[in-house]
């Protein structure tokens, strides 16, 4: 199988697994226990927190471990919005956020919060001027993603952060998709809250983190014991957290190595895009330059993205229509619609995301298979009135 779905998830790096294993076997203690086994687990947890904090340019106490990127988004948005609700009940986000952000906002709307959804241009970028205009006296929180999970477009986060800082509103960014590729220095980005997930960067599923800048009030969304400084109750997923920290370290600790891998991935991505551009009726979606190095997203005329993904799977290529989280939905991608594509056309979306194991030969084979399958489907005139999902 040629795996071109790294934006959906990544395999666990062998070094990550190695770091995790002792905490699944020998060091099984509860980090809250007083005895030696508990203390050993606590040490793993503390070291992981320091590692993550160092990579983010943050203090260890500013890192809250969670059950993953979606939980981090929920905690950031609902937690910060409620904690600041006495000051105001207006939140600003964008039309292209991940469902974890959009649905957190939606549930706040049901509780009387007002939410503004910033538009994006045809490449999926938010205009910081729109944000500046949308902030009012009642605005308490802005949530704009670092990089889009469907089309890979990178948002001008530092500019947005600077505006939020100047206007005195909290700024959250969903960095789940960007975490493996882009600089995460929370001061340079001027963020107050930043979500990360482990499994997008060769760590395990079911673990993530939320950076919470010191002094940021947060209403916990999970009630229980005093774990994570009362911000997230529940016995810590020690092995997962240790694995996450190791994975983040492997991806980010050496900036030069990260940039070199990004350059390699970008070359593969561009090869993919160039190859697919050779198929008639194919356009690239997302920003031509400001995009994740591994992410190629396309619209292919005359085919249904879901059918195409199923057909590619049968021919040994793992790809996606856009977002693994929404596949199965009848509605076309909210991201593509926000970028101005018409619904019919948006059904023909395909996302190919390269990773550490991806080779040029794999990319070439994928291009060949996509061309053949698209040709077959167009010949049969498969109508665009349905969506397939896995």
């Amino acid at each position, binding site marked *: 199988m040629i795996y071109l779905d790294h934006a959906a998830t990544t395999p666990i790096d062998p070094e990550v697994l190695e770091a995790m294993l002792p905490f699944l076997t020998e060091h099984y203690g509860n980090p809250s226990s007083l005895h030696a086994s508990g203390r050993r687990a606590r040490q793993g947890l503390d070291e992981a927190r320091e590692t993550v904090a160092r990579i983010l340019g943050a203090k260890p106490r500013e890192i809250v471990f969670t059950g993953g990127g979606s939980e981090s988004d929920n905690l950031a948005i609902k937690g910060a919005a409620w904690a600041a609700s006495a000051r105001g009940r207006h939140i600003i986000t964008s039309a292209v956020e991940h469902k974890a952000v959009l649905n957190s906002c939606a549930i706040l709307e049901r509780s009387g919060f007002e939410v503004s959804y910033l538009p994006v241009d045809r490449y999926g970028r938010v205009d910081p001027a729109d944000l500046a205009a949308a902030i009012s006296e009642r605005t308490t929180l802005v949530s704009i993603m670092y990089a889009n999970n469907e089309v890979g477009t990178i948002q001008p986060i530092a500019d947005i952060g600077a505006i939020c800082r100047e206007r005195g509103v909290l700024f959250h960014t969903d960095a789940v998709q960007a975490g493996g590729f882009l600089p995460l220095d929370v001061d340079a980005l001027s963020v107050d809250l930043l979500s990360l997930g482990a499994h997008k960067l060769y760590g395990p599923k079911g673990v993530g983190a939320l950076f919470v800048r010191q002094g940021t009030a947060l209403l916990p969304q999970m009630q229980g014991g005093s774990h994570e400084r009362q911000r997230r109750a529940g016995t810590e997923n020690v092995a997962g957290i240790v694995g996450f920290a190791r994975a983040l370290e492997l991806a980010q600790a050496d900036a030069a190595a990260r940039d070199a891998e990004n350059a390699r991935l970008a070359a593969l991505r561009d090869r993919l895009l160039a190859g697919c551009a050779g198929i008639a009726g194919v356009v690239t979606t997302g920003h031509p330059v400001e995009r994740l190095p591994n992410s190629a997203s396309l619209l292919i005329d005359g085919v*249904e993205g*879901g*059918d*195409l993904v*199923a*057909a590619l*799977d*049968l*021919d040994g290529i793992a790809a996606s229509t856009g977002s693994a989280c929404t596949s*199965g*939905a*009848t509605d076309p991608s909210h991201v593509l619609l926000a970028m101005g594509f018409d619904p019919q056309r948006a059904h023909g979306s395909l996302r190919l995301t390269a990773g550490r194991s991806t080779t040029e030969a794999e990319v070439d084979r994928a291009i060949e298979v996509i061309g053949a*399958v698209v040709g*077959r*489907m167009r*010949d*049969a*005139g*498969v*109508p665009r*009135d*349905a*969506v*397939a*999902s*896995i």
Partner: protein
Amino acid sequence: MGRVVAAMSGGVDSSVAAALLAQAAGQTGDEVIGVWMRLHPDTGEGYEQRRSCCTPDAHDDARRVAQLLDIPFFALNLERAFEQRVIDAFADGYLAGATPNPCQACNQYIKFDELLRRGLAAYGADAVATGHYARVEHRDGRHRLMRAADADKDQTYFLWVLDQEQLAHTRFPLGALTKPQVRRIATDLGLPTADKPESQEICFVPAGDYRELLAERRGYTGDPGPIVDRDGTQLGTHTGYAHYTVGQRHGLGLALGEPVFVREVRPGTNTVVIGRRDEIAARRFSVDGRRFVAGAPPAERFSASVRIRHRGIDIPCEVTLVGDERFQVETAEPVWAPAPGQAAVLYDGEECLGGGRIAGAA
């Protein structure tokens, strides 16, 4: 050796059909691909109680079976096609004073037209297999649609619309089996669907009450109108013509001392005509939208047997073609309540010849 798409609803029949294909794949070299079709939204109120093929439970069951069979599994979203071709057509049928046949529309447009076309193109398959009880025989240069071995389960009444091209790419692995045999196979294989009950009701009309659907989709709430006998004498008042179907006995609100039934529904005048038992039967009726499995009728006029409802009786008849689209059926014995909109399906012994939609008494 090729690729076969097995339609999997999450019920026991399609589970066993897929299992038989997967088992045979060892010898045939076929690659079997399980496909579940999402036909309508599964989040409505009370969906968990529905015995339908579109609930999350049905999806789960189909996927579990595919996992056990170790075959690839995809969900295919056909909600839009189903909405237009089946649900809207169902509502419009009632509004036209007919008795729609949604299960047949689903088979025709969704399971065969759509799945077959998409299966062949998207999945590069050579055939589609379903859990229908029916058989295909290839004899004398033709693909023949034959009744199932289990006469009680035979589903050819819903399949008469299939043409030669479709039959060439269709497989019915259960055609030679009886339902008890199918259940036993499911149990022996440990399939989680072995004990599932039959689905009975129309899957998108959960409580069996379609009036709400007419109101929702077509804004039809019904105006009261007259219930009359064959002479035009008003005997009562109905709640709206589309709430009644030919042959219906209950819900008329009449006490006439003898059983009466809906004989005809007239949308133009919002009238429901009733009659006694002997007035509901007909010996002659005309059929529209004819199709023949062979691609052409056997003759201008021929003897056959006709069935006008699923699991109904076979009635010997004479068929006479009329124009390009119609035929007329004349039966030896009166037929109970031929309802406009329902299929009239023709058989020659075990072979299903084709059929059409009942237009009315002739």
